[in-house]
């Protein structure tokens, strides 16, 4: 007799470990009968998880924190025993903005500090000429995409609330919105950046791994109460995910993985696009230039699946910086407690040693001082552009 679970997901490449855990039978082998429900909005995923229509969900990392702190919505404590992905986002700009940035840049715009300063110059010029501010698309108020865009542009002197417009767009609408000029750029996860490049309407400016070497992206989230009431089911779920992540990271399995994910009821894009994402071999311009970064999306490698509370502290610090949350020691502690490496370790064992080559502070930001999860005041003090109350 197997345990039946309903799990919600958004069709994105960082749902890979979950989708493969189900479609390759890793869940079934753990005695779990999973019904996957494909959703269209993060609000839906959050609400259905919160009120118990889902047992677990593919969650964008800041939503798990917002839900646990009761920001923007009701307070339902969420815990995350498994990281579905580290990195995986990219910033894509229109050909016109790409050309403007290149013209304004002092150096190669491949460098995020150079590109952010170039953006500041483009913004200043548009202001002087009374032109509309540039519009950037992102996926949700409490999203990594929102914080990644803000962190990058603010480092170059662009105020994300005053100098440009940031608008929420559902990921499947990003490409169309760039094409018809409703946005000038966007930050979103795979495969949408590649889709824009393939259509010849966008240039990938940066992988988020160039802005933050290590950025938690999606989590497997469950209600804290559910986790307490179903410890055995949860452990088996984590085990199945861990096996799936290992399977995905074996390059010999990548074609099979890409084919499974390409199904219309899963991610629903060409297998080749998914393969590029998993391999970190990305076409970045319509002209056919490729950029390689093995860190583009980490599914299970380099400890990516083990939730790291440092990431929770960094995300909470962004919420404080941009005026979404008050600064408090209690809230910081609650945010960190969403990430549950202990549950991960209990299910699959603690990693023997730290992973070589990972950033010492757990984040590796391209600008600012090293991040200290116990002293987010120092992180916040480092910036002049902020919205703290």
């Amino acid at each position, binding site marked *: 007799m197997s345990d039946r679970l309903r799990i919600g997901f958004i069709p994105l490449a960082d749902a890979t470990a979950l989708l493969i855990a189900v479609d390759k039978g890793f869940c079934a082998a753990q005695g779990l009968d999973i019904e996957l429900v494909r959703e269209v*909005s993060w609000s839906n995923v959050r609400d*259905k998880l*919160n009120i118990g229509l889902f047992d677990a969900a593919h969650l964008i990392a800041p939503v798990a924190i917002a839900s646990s702190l009761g920001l*923007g919505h*009701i307070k339902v404590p969420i815990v995350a025993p498994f990281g579905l992905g580290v990195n995986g986002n990219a910033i894509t700009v229109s050909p016109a903005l790409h050309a403007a940035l290149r013209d304004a840049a002092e150096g190669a715009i491949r460098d995020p500090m150079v590109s952010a300063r170039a953006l500041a110059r483009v913004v200043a010029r548009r202001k002087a000429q009374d032109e*509309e501010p540039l519009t950037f698309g992102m996926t949700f108020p409490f999203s990594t995409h929102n914080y990644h865009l803000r962190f990058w542009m603010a480092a170059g002197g662009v105020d994300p609330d005053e100098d440009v*417009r940031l608008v*929420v767009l559902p990921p499947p609408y990003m490409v169309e919105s760039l094409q018809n000029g409703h946005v000038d750029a966007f930050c979103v996860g795979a495969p949408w950046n590649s889709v824009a490049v393939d259509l010849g309407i966008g240039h990938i400016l940066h992988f988020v791994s160039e802005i933050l070497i290590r950025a938690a992206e999606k989590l497997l989230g469950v209600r804290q109460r559910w986790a307490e009431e179903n410890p055995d089911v949860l452990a088996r779920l984590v085990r199945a995910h861990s096996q799936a992540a290992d399977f995905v990271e074996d390059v010999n399995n990548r074609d099979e993985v890409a084919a499974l994910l390409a199904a219309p009821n899963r991610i629903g894009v060409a297998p080749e696009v998914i393969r590029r994402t998993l391999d970190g071999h990305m076409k970045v311009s319509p002209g056919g230039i490729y950029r390689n970064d093995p860190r583009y999306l980490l599914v299970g490698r380099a400890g990516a699946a083990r939730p790291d509370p440092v990431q929770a502290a960094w995300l909470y610090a962004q919420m404080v910086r941009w005026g*979404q949350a008050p600064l408090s020691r209690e809230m910081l502690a609650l945010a960190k407690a969403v990430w549950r490496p202990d549950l991960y370790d209990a299910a699959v064992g603690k990693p023997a040693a730290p992973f070589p080559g990972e950033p010492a502070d757990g984040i590796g930001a391209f600008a600012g001082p090293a991040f200290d999860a116990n002293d987010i005041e120092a992180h916040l003090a480092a910036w002049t552009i902020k919205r703290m109350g």
Partner: protein
Amino acid sequence: MSRTSPERTGLLARVYALDPDVILIDLENPSRDELEQMFQVSRAVKRPIAMFVDQSDTASIQASVDAGVSAYIVGNLQKERIKTILDLCVSRFNAFSRLQGELDRAKSALEDRKVIDRAKGILMKMKKLTEEEAYALLRKTAMNENRKIAEVAQSVIMAAEMFK
């Protein structure tokens, strides 16, 4: 907001113009995430309160999400009225899906009837049976085989095609 799309501008503009007490949104609409941002940043929507603020009435909330609809309460609507509106909305959604289900069933019943009529005709001709006898034979076979009459009728038609 000249640079946002017509539908999106429309959404925001309509909310401002109508100044509604409550916004109901179909959960299949991906634009729901945009509404969430609107409630966060907009000063024009005075006191945005999501439906789920009132955590005591979880059954009602669950019923609404189950039915495929969510509500945002924007004005100073009283709690009792919110519940009435939401309950009404849920019952209308459920009534709609019930009608849809009935329509689907009626369509398939009509389809079944056509198949059974054809099979009866074949049996009457080949076995020299009356219409009642042909139907009785179909029904008896269906009962013995534990299948639907329409399925047996389909088999008869298929077999007749092969013997042509």
